[in-house]
């Protein structure tokens, strides 16, 4: 974002090798922690890796978690491209859930699923984008820092949703603060349902068709950021707002567009969780996915391909972590949270720690790089 000491490294090192090194560093520290609490880290690693892929159920869960992380990862990445740090993915996804719920609660008595689900998704996107637009407006036109505002908006969203879920939408006679269950027409089909239609037997898992929407979002973000005028403007502002102004691009408009898109992407979590799985509004259904998105975007180098890969990695960590916590009760699932923090630390905060020694190492193998650097 700013003040980066740039050393010329080939692209494959930057986007391929670096994230792997960051991941290894994070795993090493996590391994150390596991060692401290008296568990063999190799065993823990084996249980976790196996737990994420051992059968179709495990893989489905991995992908189900990964779907959320693709949405939030893309949301963070799009804002990053505009030079904005959107920490508000959590709140945007949360409020998006309200949009989806309101739309479906209003209409699920009248419309078929083929209309209900898209309307729910659109409502979610409108609410998510709206929740992102206020901080965007305040940053663009009132000069308040988007990081602080999006943090504040996460908390405001949390309070709002507690109020809505426990006071406004709570179904009569329901003890839990949640809305009533949607009519089955509004359920986004599960993958195991579709498999059954095609004659395959699959165990029932939460994995649903929102994974297709995640794939579509990835393609859209790639096209939008790298192949459209708007994307160009976003990247220009992200690299240098002054140069962008000089080129006739309005940073204010770019901030609005980037954050709007960011919030709409984060709304995918509502599709996966609310329309796809819980079928009702629940408290805290985002469950930290907004923050995981930061780690995913950083490790995925803000590129859809990288984001998909690191989202699947984090999905595997979540699923494997659940297995690990089951097998070795000493280790709780919070290990995954710690792991996220470590990934953010190494691939984000300490990104420039690795560069010099990797550059030196690379130079030992490539004489031309040395000459280029000397020049």
């Amino acid at each position: 974002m700013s003040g980066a000491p740039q050393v010329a490294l080939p692209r494959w090192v930057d986007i391929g090798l670096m994230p792997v090194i960051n991941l290894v560093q994070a795993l090493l520290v996590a391994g150390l922690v596991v060692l401290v609490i008296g568990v063999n880290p190799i065993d823990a690693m084996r249980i976790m890796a196996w737990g994420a892929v051992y059968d179709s159920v495990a893989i489905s869960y991995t992908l189900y978690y990964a779907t959320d992380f693709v949405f939030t990862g893309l949301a963070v990445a799009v804002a990053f491209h505009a030079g904005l740090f959107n920490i508000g993915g959590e709140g945007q996804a949360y409020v998006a859930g309200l949009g989806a719920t309101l739309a479906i609660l209003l209409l699920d008595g009248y419309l078929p699923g083929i209309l209900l689900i898209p309307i729910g998704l659109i409502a979610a996107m409108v609410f998510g984008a709206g929740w992102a637009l206020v901080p965007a407006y305040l940053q663009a036109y009132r000069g308040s820092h988007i990081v602080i505002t999006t943090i504040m908006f996460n908390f405001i969203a949390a309070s709002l949703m507690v109020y809505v879920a426990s006071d406004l939408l709570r179904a009569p006679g329901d003890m839990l603060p949640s809305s009533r269950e949607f009519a089955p027409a509004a359920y986004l089909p599960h993958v195991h349902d579709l498999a059954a239609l095609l004659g395959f037997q699959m165990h029932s898992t939460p994995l649903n068709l929102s994974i297709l929407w995640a794939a579509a979002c990835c393609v859209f973000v790639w096209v939008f950021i790298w192949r459209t005028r708007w994307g160009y403007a976003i990247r220009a502002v992200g690299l240098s707002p002054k140069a962008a102004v000089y080129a006739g691009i309005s940073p204010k408009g770019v901030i609005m567009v980037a954050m709007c898109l960011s919030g709409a992407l984060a709304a995918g979590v509502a599709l996966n969780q609310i329309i796809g799985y819980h079928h009702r509004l629940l408290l805290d259904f985002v469950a930290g996915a907004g923050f995981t998105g930061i780690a995913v975007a950083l490790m995925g180098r803000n590129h859809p391909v990288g984001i998909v890969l690191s989202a699947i990695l984090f999905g595997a960590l979540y699923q494997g972590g659940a297995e690990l916590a089951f097998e070795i009760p000493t280790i709780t699932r919070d290990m995954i949270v710690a792991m996220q923090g470590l990934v953010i630390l190494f691939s984000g905060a300490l990104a420039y720690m690795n560069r010099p020694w990797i550059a030196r190492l690379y130079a030992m193998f490539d004489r031309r790089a040395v000459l280029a650097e000397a020049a």
Partner: protein
Amino acid sequence: MEELWLQAVSILAATLRTATPLVFCAMAGMFSERSGIIDIGLEGKMLAGAFAAACLAVVTGSAWLALLGAVLVGVLMALLHGLACITYRGNQVVSGVAINIMAAGLTVVLGNAWFGRGGQTPDLAPEARFMPFKILSRESAYEIPILGPLYAFVIGGHNLLVYVAFATVPVAWWVLYHTRFGLRLRAVGEDPKVVDTAGISVAWLRYRAVIIAGLLCGFAGAYLAIAQNAGFSPHMTAGRGFIALAAMVFGKWRPWPAMFACLLFGLLDAIAIRLQGVILPGIGQVPVEAIQALPYILTVVLLAGFVGRAMAPHALGQPYVKER
């Protein structure tokens, strides 16, 4: 009338208790941000400090050793933040997020591994905690009209760390505005190049600022775990680090206004708890969530410049690159 006064006194006392960790963290954030280093890791440092305090109090039984441990852990995490932001010129917000998330994960993992109980530490004995000073007993306080309860519950009757928290405010004010270090600290947050040109190390100044921040966050954590409560429970900071950050912004990066913002937010919290389920005449039931969200809303409104103007230190968030 007397009933109302007792209500007011108890709300004031609760305000001081909830404001204490906020004051520590707001001062911490102020030192860091005045030097130009964004600190959204207050929450994580406080949480880690709370965990360290509870662990040490369980193991050693000494509140003082626990406090020391909390401060050490807070400073260590601050040094990590410094390493990322000052030495390696990383993104300061990213580093803060990393610290918060790591603290949230590691405290539960370690706590569960060491004590079982799902990350909670065992209940602490009074000897291992900072207990409220007993100046007047409850009965004798009620005998003195008006001033009795005020003295017993608002001025007295707190634990040591409450007084320390409010004492840090004048100290912070004096350090910032009346010492050479403070002058330089403010300068480095406004324009590091000037400080560098004067032959003063930008990095060392900023490191000192983040170390102070870590230290104060350690105090805040110790207060939560071994003074206000009798042990650590997962995620016990519950967003207080962010409220403190909001209070600091609300106080425009200045010690006294930041303290008053902490008191205001503490008061809102104290009122919110008492208003739960209460039906006010003419208004009806006030949604407690609205009061709980008020600190954040107020901060957003202030930052947006609709009421006054909050100006951040000029060089906030920009890593300093010495010209070669």
